[in-house]
């Protein structure tokens, strides 16, 4: 019995288009992005004070599920301990380039590495 699946031209076109698009997007974010400068953390819609990526620091971030421990060291940032069920944020590993991020949906935390420009408030005038 010859399998009938994977026999149609549309499949290859569809898969090819998606793969090329994903590769381009990946190349853009991975290889052409500048080294990051700041770590910006956001919990449940609130942006916390950005931390320089060059620092050695441990952040304890309280989300709806509990405390997520984030470590900044050696120019990269990663989630060390998380209370969420999936631990996808932990599995995301270390990030260091501008534009990369770690996302934890259950605990509502987004950790983003940004470039030269300091994230958040640009200036305060009085």
């Amino acid at each position: 019995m010859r399998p009938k699946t994977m026999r149609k031209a549309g499949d290859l076109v569809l898969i090819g288009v998606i793969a090329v698009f994903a590769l381009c997007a990946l190349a853009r974010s991975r290889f052409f992005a500048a080294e990051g400068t700041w770590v910006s953390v956001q919990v449940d819609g609130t942006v916390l004070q950005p931390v320089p990526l060059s620092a050695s620091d441990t952040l304890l971030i309280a989300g709806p599920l509990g405390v997520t421990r984030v470590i900044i060291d050696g120019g990269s940032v990663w989630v060390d301990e998380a209370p969420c069920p999936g631990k996808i944020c932990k599995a995301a590993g270390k990030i260091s380039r501008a534009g990369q991020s770690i996302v934890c949906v259950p605990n509502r935390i987004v950790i983003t590495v940004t470039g030269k420009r300091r994230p958040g408030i640009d200036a305060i005038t009085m």
Partner: protein
Amino acid sequence: MTGVSMQKKIVYIAVMTAFASVLFIIENLVSLPLPWLRLGLANVMTLLALKWWGLKEGLLITLLRVLVGGLLSGRFLQPLFWMALSGGIGAALGMWLLFQFRRWFSLVGISVFGAVVKNAIQLAGAYLLLGMQAGVLTLLPLILFSSLVSGALIGLLGGLLDRSLRSESMSFHP
């Protein structure tokens, strides 16, 4: 439709919903080493329902599966439930759309498209849920790659199930 074939169809839909719910729950229990690589095995039942009957039955199985899975996993009406619901409906609609062009697409292509739609919707959901941080969208390429893999696997599995159920020895096929 005669009474007997209607009854038969109800039984098929019930059994497929049960299968889909179990697959959905098992998959949620397994914590994978790689992020964003859930297969979405439950989608194979939606794929078969769309192939055997149509949009109505495909959506019905998807909705029931998300409902049962949500209740049993304790996530009913929580964010992850809404993401599963919107992703499931999107995948069913996307796959149905490609079924209209059956001449050009096999189950693999249809299933890949369903996985892409599902994951794109869930990414958009995460983006909204987490306060529209642009950082969330950088996960798009990874999610697209994992959709290709999971979609293709589920398409192959669907084809296998369809062929074996249709064979002479098994008279399960509707």
